[in-house]
């Protein structure tokens, strides 16, 4: 009886392993430098090098409460090694971390940097982190937040 139980468990494990989804590891999605993208009159940004475009009105609505406050602003965006997108704009209090889900940028984390707004943000790739520089201040971030 005991033997047959072990056999069933083993069989279950083999079937479970065979049914698990395919995964390719050792991936690196990191962009070497951040992209600084002009926001057009419709609230869209597009990046020729990394071939994507997105509408950022909802981001401004979330940050400022005004979806039209993007006029003449530039969006800074960089992708880390795990594939998360880190984005912010001069004057924003937060850095927004997005993942990709079903054809959309889906918020993964909102990292508060400065209650008074980030004055001159730049982001660098510092694997496994993304570095944010604001004047003399430097921060290291990942998709879970600021490095403690």
């Amino acid at each position, binding site marked *: 009886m005991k033997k047959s139980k072990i056999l069933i468990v083993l069989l279950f494990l083999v079937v479970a392993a065979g049914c698990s989804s395919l995964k390719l590891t050792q991936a690196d999605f990191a962009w*070497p*430098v*951040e*992209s*600084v993208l002009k926001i057009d009159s419709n609230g869209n940004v597009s990046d020729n*090098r990394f071939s994507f475009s997105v509408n950022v009105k909802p981001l401004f609505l979330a940050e400022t409460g005004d979806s039209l406050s993007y006029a003449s602003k530039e969006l800074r965006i960089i992708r880390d090694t795990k594939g998360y997108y880190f984005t912010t704009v001069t004057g924003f209090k937060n850095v927004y971390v997005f993942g990709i889900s079903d054809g959309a940028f889906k918020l993964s984390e909102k990292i508060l940097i400065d209650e008074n707004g980030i004055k001159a943000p*730049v*982001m*660098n*790739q510092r694997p496994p982190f993304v570095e944010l*520089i604001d*004047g*003399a201040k*430097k921060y290291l971030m990942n998709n879970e937040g600021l490095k403690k």
Partner: protein
Amino acid sequence: MKMFNMMKFVFAVALLGFIFSSAVNAQSDREKTDKFKSGVQKIADAIKNAKDVNECASIETQIEKLRTDSQADKALLDKSLYPDDFSSSIEKLSTALTLRKGDFTQIKELKTEVVGLKDQVTDLNKKNFDLIGEIRVLTLRVNKSDKVNDSLKTLVAQLRASLKERDKLVMGMVDSLLTEFTKNPSGLSETEQQGMIATIKNKNLFFNIQRTINDNIKFMEVTQLKADDISEMKKQQVKFSKLWRQIGPKLADVYLNKKENAAQVTQINSLFQSWNLLINNQLWGNVDKAFKDKNVKILPYNNGQEFSDNIKNYVQDQIKNLPTIGKDASLKEFKLLSDTVWFNNVKKDWVPVLIENGLLTEAQKDTVEANLAMWKTQVEPPFSFTWIFLALGALIVVVIAVFVIMSKKKKTL
């Protein structure tokens, strides 16, 4: 205690210095990339606009400085300078600089060559001027003695050869200029335009082109050219004119802000037109002379269509007037026009040149000949076979007679 305070002060200064230097060193990777890209672009522009070898040497130093200054960021630049990388960007600059240096070496060689060409053209200009003068004088005395006629022929031959040589040199100058333009199909930069203007001035190009056309025009005016000579000159004119049409509009762009030179370009355009018109007129003039010399009065014409129409009208008038002037007189007129003027002179010497240069079409030539054939049927009766039958009959009679006589002689023997 004092020592302790001193140490505290040094430590505070060091800490401040560290914080300050961190702040200064805090630089965006993107900024570094953009700075490098902008440095590359500046040097690339400097290479394009370099005026001489010395400037190239200074650019070489700039490339080296960019390489050294950016070496620390090589890893970043290799990734961020897509599709290039750090080494290929520097390599591209070095290659462009080497090519530019090569241009200057070539320009130096060409300048030496141009000085030589310029002297040759100047000598030929003078020689041609003297020859044209001498020919003018001799033309007035022509037919006065065989010696004068021979001298004139010799001088015309000399002038023809000399003009050809000079034309070739000037065309070479224009051609080399065209090569400069085709090297830069997107248009010349300000510096390149200035270089082009200097080259044109140095070669005395506009003067030489004008002189070439004018001398050819004068040559046509002072000499009586044969069909072959005009044909050759027409070919020369077409070739030179084609070359000028390629470069003329480009030069007009270069001289957009220099009214005097722009006027010269326009003047040369009209000189080419005059030259072309003169050759065409001389061709038709020679054809006309062939008719006039034999007193065949065709109405004036200036092109192939008019020529063919006027001959057609002339022939139709002749056919219409046949009852008035009589068949014999008309036949005489026909033979003069058809045999003497058309087939022995115009068709043989001038029609090939006219057709080759698009002044007369095959169809227009055929119209002339069809009309002549029509006239012929009216004035010359068609060939009669009666005379052939009569001659054959006579021959048969003679053969039979000889045969009968021979057989009779055999019998008597």
